[in-house]
């Protein structure tokens, strides 16, 4: 680390020298950009574009490439990881809470809606700050390892090349989202992730359950997406921009300019709508139903969704959007998050499918993160997202390894596998310790920080509903410890319950082992404390590295000034003076209690889980059936939608089209009537005239005999008559 730092410092120096040569203005720019140049921006953009390029190549030529192209995508992902590390090192070298690189200040931005004078535009660029730096590393790392793992796990699949293509696209979307500097591009990548999850969850499309799960995942998250889009509409309407930095600035101005110096209500609405986007993507209550079903996808996909991409994006969004969340919106966020935390954890106790347990644990942990951001612990929540990414990816890949070995997902058919799968066992154990919040493991640091924030917020505000998050979260962390160790006990400890499956189990090749080892070790170390840019002793006062780099920036409330700033100072005071020490005790107690209970139930078997379940059978059944949410949604929203669509299509067919056909029929009827009028009356006259003429003619033609003498006689007669008339006149 030191060597990298020194390189970076040198780099910064050369940049500064260059700046001096170019003049004062350039130097100001160079220092404002922490030694980043346009080249770095292009490198950052390459991180998502590499997998995209891989995707395109794979889509067209994947089947023809040797090994169906997996080596290409894996290496592209690792290349992205390399770049991410390189840029991350530069970011660490800067080591400043205010570290922020915006491509637009460096003259790199893309006007996506065209540039015409006098009309609004959407300019896209790259935003690279501490958060995106950390996220890039985590996402590229987890993605690379998942790619690698997939090469072993998916071997022999009939759509192997497409699987790799889609998983690369998934990485592209997430990485693009991370470096987006505006909400509209954020939204684009966000939706693309929805597409990828749809494609990947439905990878085994020929299974009925898979096709249902993929549709469910897409539609459920899409509900959130539409809310997010409407939120964007509100923001765009009021601020005329969707660029993060500008939004923060304009929110500040909006609050300061509001007549009562308050947060405007529409901003609360916008904040909650944006948060609803996260509710969908991060599977928060009440849109959590898709995530457990998403287990229908191949296990690497689950790892990807749960650790690196999809669900992390939701938390990332709330983190990015934190400054636009009003206090009212934050209450909603924190209560929804913490309720999800405890709600999902209870379901996790009863689940018997190893992946379902992990799925509910993810929902629960996401609740932690979101609740943390809601109570104001943005750094803590995002930090938990990072540590969680490491250990949850490890857990999922580990479960994949287990499933690969025993070909079942039901934990009741496992047991004793630690002897057969030592690497899987050890890495999963490390991750379990981390997620349970055992000290020295990564999860401890992040979870502890979250509890501290929740506690501080409750103590600071003193209103009853501010106590809900801390109560929920503390209980949830106890339950988490319990069910995670239940998983370990049922899978790896005790005696094998299915001898045949046990006998066939074996550890798989290096492609699957290496990711496990890397992630397992990260689950231990990725929370370690840092002080001033260098690792600190474990038990020092130093904060975990991410918090150390994140938390010292000037808080948004302070920027707002006035009573906001005072309020925030009081909060900070409580956090550091009393909340933090209490939270450590609380989290240790919770973890300890949960772990001991699970040992009592599943290792030493002092109590029987079956008997407990029987004692509270109705409750147990409710939890086992996930509180009947799927059934509820199925009977209400989905059935309602289907009925409504049927009704409206019938309405269309019989009423709207009925009117059209009726009018047509009426036209036909009236035309028939007028036709008969025409036939009888109008034509009658014409015919009458014709007949009359004919009748007269047939009478008068009798005179026309053709006899000359008769004509002459007539003429003479006429002559005589005329003469008589003339004479007698």
């Amino acid at each position: 680390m030191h060597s990298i730092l020194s390189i970076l410092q040198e780099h910064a120096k050369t940049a500064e020298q260059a700046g001096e040569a170019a003049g004062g203005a350039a130097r100001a720019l160079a220092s404002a950009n922490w030694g980043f140049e346009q080249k770095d921006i292009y490198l950052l953009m390459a991180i998502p574009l590499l997998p995209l390029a891989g995707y395109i190549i794979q889509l067209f030529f994947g089947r023809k490439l040797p090994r169906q192209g997996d080596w290409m995508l894996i290496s592209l992902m690792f290349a992205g990881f390399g770049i991410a590390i390189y840029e991350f090192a530069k970011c660490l070298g800067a080591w400043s809470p205010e570290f922020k690189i915006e491509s637009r200040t460096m003259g790199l931005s893309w006007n996506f809606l065209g540039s015409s004078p006098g009309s609004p535009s959407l300019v896209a660029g790259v935003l690279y700050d501490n958060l995106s730096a950390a996220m890039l590393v985590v996402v590229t790392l987890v993605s690379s390892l998942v790619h690698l793992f997939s090469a072993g796990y998916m071997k022999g699949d009939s759509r192997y090349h497409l699987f790799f293509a889609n998983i690369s696209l998934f990485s592209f979307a997430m990485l693009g989202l991370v470096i987006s500097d505006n909400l509209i591009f954020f939204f684009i990548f966000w939706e693309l992730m929805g597409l990828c999850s749809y494609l990947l969850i439905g990878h085994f499309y020929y299974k009925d359950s898979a096709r249902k799960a993929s549709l469910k995942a897409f539609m459920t998250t899409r509900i959130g997406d539409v809310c997010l889009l409407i939120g964007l509409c509100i923001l765009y309407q009021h601020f005329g921009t969707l660029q993060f930095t500008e939004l923060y600035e304009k929110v500040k101005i909006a609050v300061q300019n509001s007549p009562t110096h308050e947060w405007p209500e529409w901003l609360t609405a916008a904040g909650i709508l944006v948060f609803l986007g996260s509710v969908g993507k991060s599977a928060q209550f009440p849109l959590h139903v898709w995530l457990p079903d998403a287990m229908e996808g191949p296990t690497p996909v689950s790892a990807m969704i749960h650790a690196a991409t999809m669900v992390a994006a939701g938390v990332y969004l709330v983190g990015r959007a934190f400054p636009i969340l009003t206090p009212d919106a934050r209450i909603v966020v924190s209560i929804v998050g913490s309720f999800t935390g405890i709600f999902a954890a209870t379901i996790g106790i009863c689940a018997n499918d190893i992946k379902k347990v992990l799925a509910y644990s993810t929902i629960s942990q996401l609740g932690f993160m979101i609740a943390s951001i809601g109570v104001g612990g943005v750094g803590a929540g995002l930090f938990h997202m990072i540590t969680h990414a490491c250990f949850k990816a490890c857990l999922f890949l580990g479960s994949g390894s287990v499933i690969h070995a025993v070909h079942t997902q039901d934990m009741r058919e496992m047991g004793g596998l630690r002897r057969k799968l030592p690497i899987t066992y050890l890495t999963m154990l490390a991750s379990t310790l981390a997620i349970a919040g055992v000290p020295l493991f990564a999860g401890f640091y992040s979870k502890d920080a979250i509890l501290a924030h929740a506690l501080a917020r409750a103590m600071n505000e003193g209103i009853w509903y501010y106590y809900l998050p801390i109560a929920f979260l503390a209980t949830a962390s106890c339950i988490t410890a319990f069910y995670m160790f239940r998983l370990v006990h049922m899978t790896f400890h005790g005696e094998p319950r299915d001898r045949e499956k046990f006998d066939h189990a074996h550890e798989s090749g290096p492609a699957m082992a290496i990711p496990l080892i890397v992630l397992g070790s990260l689950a231990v170390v990725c929370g370690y404390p840092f002080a001033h840019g260098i690792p600190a002793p474990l038990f020092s006062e130093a904060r975990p590295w991410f918090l150390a780099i994140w938390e010292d920036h000037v808080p948004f409330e302070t920027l707002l000034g006035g009573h906001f700033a005072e309020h925030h100072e009081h909060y900070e005071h409580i956090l550091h003076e009393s909340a933090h020490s209490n939270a450590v005790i609380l989290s240790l107690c919770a973890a300890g209690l949960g772990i001991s209970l699970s040992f009592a139930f599943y290792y030493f078997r002092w109590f029987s889980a079956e008997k407990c379940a029987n004692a509270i059978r109705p409750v147990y059944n409710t939890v086992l059936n996930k509180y009947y949410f799927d059934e509820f949604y199925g009977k209400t929203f989905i059935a309602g939608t289907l009925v409504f669509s049927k009704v409206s299509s019938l309405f269309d067919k019989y009423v709207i089209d009925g009117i059209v056909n009726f009018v047509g029929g009426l036209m036909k009827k009236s035309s028939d009537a007028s036709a008969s009028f025409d036939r009888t009356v109008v034509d009658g006259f014409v015919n009458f005239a014709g007949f009359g003429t004919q009748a007269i003619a047939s009478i008068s033609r009798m005179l026309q005999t053709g006899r000359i003498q008769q004509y002459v006689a007539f003429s003479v007669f006429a002559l005589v008559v005329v003469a008589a008339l003339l004479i007698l006149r």
Partner: protein
Amino acid sequence: MNVASNLLSWITFFPLVGILAIMCLPSAQKQLIRLVAIVASAVPLGLSLYMWFWGFDGASERMQLIERAPWIQAGNFVVQYFVGVDGLSMPLVALTCLLLFIGVFASWNIERGLKGYFALLLLLEIGINGTFVSLDMFLFYVFWEIMLLPMYFLIGIWGGPRREYAAIKFFLYTLAGSVLMLVAIVAIYIITGRFNIQSYLDVNGNNVAGLLELARTKNINPQVLTANGMLLGLPFQDWIFWFFFIAFAIKVPVFPFHTWLPDAHVEAPTPISVILAGILLKLGGYGMLRIGFPIAPESFMKYRDFLAVLGTINIVYGAYVAMGQTDFKKLVAYSSVSHMGYVLLGAASMTDMGLKGATLQMFNHGTSSAMLFLIVGVLYDRAHHRDLNGFGGLMTQMPRYGGWTTLGFFAALGLPGLAGFWSEAMTLLGSFGPYPTLTIISGLGVLMTAAFLLWTIQRVFLGPLNPKYAKLPDISAREIFCQAPFAALCIVFGVAPAMLINILAPAVKSYLAMFPGLH
């Protein structure tokens, strides 16, 4: 006969050459007839591409490539051959040429009455392009009616089992609308004594104000007809507005005038459905923006709230009805109804963003709906039915077809990165300001569109393979060739929407300037 200086005439009337050539060929020479049709539709396509990239100045707000010549002169009654394009119509002309060109290829399977079929197809092209380029109201009307005739026969002769019903419904419905339009045109002529929409300079260099300029500057004065400007209790301008609006609304189609569309689509042969959805519906939206709204600006501002409501109904109601369909083609037809609602909503919003979204949506829906109908056609050619519940698991048997379908469906449901997203998002962003509630309700339409399209994929392509269709051949090279241009356009304008928006923007700007009461 310089091509470059008479570009629009060449584009519009070149198919006439094809029609004459086809008429002269013996009907047994099927390949030759097809070849002639390809050439006759390829040349306008080439010319329109030339127009897009070189002949047209995308930065200019003005009408371009203008050609003007007297056509009918009888005293004061002057009808001119007056054509030109701006950013609004130019992309649509190019889209027409592309759609017709692809339409010829998609018609490869048609064996019966080949001569008449292709002749009518080319006549249709003349009618559509003529309508887009007309700057004279009378000329516009003539082309509008020319378009109707081939469509009637194409549906009525080469259509499905209920083709006569569908064709007559289509014809009468549209004709009813155009009668109203004719009344409005005549009324305007009586008042103003002119037909030209656009202003121009006469031989002496004097400006002859077009109808739109008159409407903007001093209203179209109704004193000739009525003493106080009122007619049966409504201002005269309102009558004009409603007559035009209904005429174009039938074409769009706007709820509740939409029921001809599903019937026409279901009965029409695939290429005709493609053209119908791809470009004919756009004529309605185009007519509103070119004539219907700016000729009665005050009435439009008065009633635009109502139009926005209609647009929203289109979006949401269309999506719901689509979801309730079991006929694949009807489902796609109703999705068109839903998508065209964005055009109306965006047009009613009168914001720069919303209008760009609406005009963009006209183009993008042209590409995405064309894809959808081609997709349906591929399946119908093989399975000879369109019942959504009768398939299942086709992805196993036809993976490439499944891939194309997925692309087409995601383009239609507005996935970012594909063109439909930009038009929908821009429409919603633009309309949120004036109509927040309606925009939120439209969000429901976005949701439902995704729901019914994906549900369709699920029912048709995913799951276990229906053994009845275990022998269906995958999509052929010709069918891919038909899909590919639209897919390419969806992706190109999805990744770089500015390419199209930069062309639309000046037109939108000058359009907004036609409404004096706006700012």
